């Protein structure tokens, strides 16, 4: 097994670890920190793929990921959290061990799903597809279990991380144009979310998404 593949495996495992850590994290600020770290890991894994396969555009992609996901987005989120005065909030979580157990089950499911796909993929990093899938599922789980809107956005972004990792791992990345498009999309998405937060807050004086459920009743 080449060093590159081993490194990818390690980074993939760490990525999964981050996904679990985010699932268990109560505090928003720490959550944002974990998200930044996940972004950095993603950038590193892209860089390793770029290095081992010698594809120049992947270097760009790695750089972009590092800049956007490890620096810009966490900073934006941090400022949002501070401005919305939810920085010190503690997320009310449903029973952490139970969530994590569900998470483990999801990992198994993800690997089971990824197995046939991984057989088809001829890349050096076959085992990582399962992990990428698991990351996606875990991010979804995180979005389900969270109550604060900002934590759900982090879940959404981490979901995007998982997809991106699947792309680099399985197909050596997408064409540059697509990647740029996605990156911009995410940025715009976060901006929209940012505005959205302020609107929710103005209306309900809280960022608890449970308030949104009442909207239906009002008609």
């Amino acid at each position, binding site marked *: 097994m080449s060093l590159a*593949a081993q*490194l990818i495996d390690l980074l*993939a*495992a760490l990525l*999964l670890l981050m996904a679990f850590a985010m699932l268990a994290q109560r505090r928003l600020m720490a959550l944002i920190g974990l998200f930044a770290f996940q972004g950095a890991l993603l950038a590193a894994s892209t860089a390793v793929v770029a290095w081992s396969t010698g594809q120049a555009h992947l270097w760009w992609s790695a750089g972009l990921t590092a800049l956007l996901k490890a620096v810009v987005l966490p900073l934006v989120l941090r400022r949002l959290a501070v401005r919305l005065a939810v920085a010190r909030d503690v997320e009310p979580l449903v029973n952490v*061990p139970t969530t994590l157990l569900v998470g*483990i089950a999801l990992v198994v499911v993800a690997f089971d799903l990824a197995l046939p796909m991984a057989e088809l993929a001829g890349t050096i990093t076959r085992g990582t597809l399962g*992990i990428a899938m698991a990351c996606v599922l875990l991010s979804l789980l995180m979005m389900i279990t969270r109550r604060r809107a900002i934590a759900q956005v982090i879940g959404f972004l981490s979901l995007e991380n998982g997809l991106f990792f699947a792309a680099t791992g399985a197909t050596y990345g997408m064409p540059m144009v697509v990647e740029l498009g996605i990156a911009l999309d995410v940025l715009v998405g976060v901006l929209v979310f940012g505005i959205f937060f302020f609107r929710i807050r103005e209306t309900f004086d809280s960022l608890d998404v449970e308030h949104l459920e009442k909207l239906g009743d009002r008609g």
Partner: protein
Amino acid sequence: MARDASFLLRFAPYCVFGCMVLAASIVPMVATGLPFAPAADVIALVGLLATARVFMALAAMDAGTAFGSMGARREMLVAGLAEPALLMVFFMPSLIVGSTSLTTIVETLAYQPFALHPSLAFAAVAFVMVLLAENARIPVDNPATHLELTMIHEAMLLEYSGRYLALMEWAHALKLMVYAGIGIALFAPWGVSPAGRWDLVPAALAALAAKLFIGGLALAILETVSAKMRIFRAPEFLGMAFLLAVLGMLILLLQGPPR
């Protein structure tokens, strides 16, 4: 020594100390091929540590004070959760190497060509968590506390004095050493001298000293920056350790062995 206590209170320190000495003699820290090593593998080692703990808890309850049984109650709570996590951690290198004998694990991991084991990283994190919990270190217990109501390990030693206390404390220090030794053997086995190579022993000793120094430093930093958690967070903490170990195992099984 408490007046009402039975022989258990006197016997327990020797028993705990004996168990720890034996445990220390099984873990290969400097060289492999230790005389007692074939007697027990990692699973028996866990059993050995559990024996020591049971005697300690029994002795704590023996004196019959409210604090002793309080300490025993909490110790059993922590231990009951730490043990499965510890076993899980042990299974991982065992799966990689295909043996539960510490000697074999060390020999295989130390002398095989370099390979990254992602799952070992998970096991290492889980192991550190178990180590903190089992050795009454800060996030779970405060070894320096003098608040009667918060302590776990100290509460059990409340009735001891003199030589018995010395033995208990010595055994406790040995336990930390054993854990450090296990950690080194599983996750950083480089530099351990193979059986029968006496010439490599000094180098191995130096390597051990260096590793222990780094480990001690890391432990000190970890303890300084973290606060003690609420006692009912401990199950969550150890549950996390267990899940991490399981996750590592899953990754090992699903990523497949290093190709």
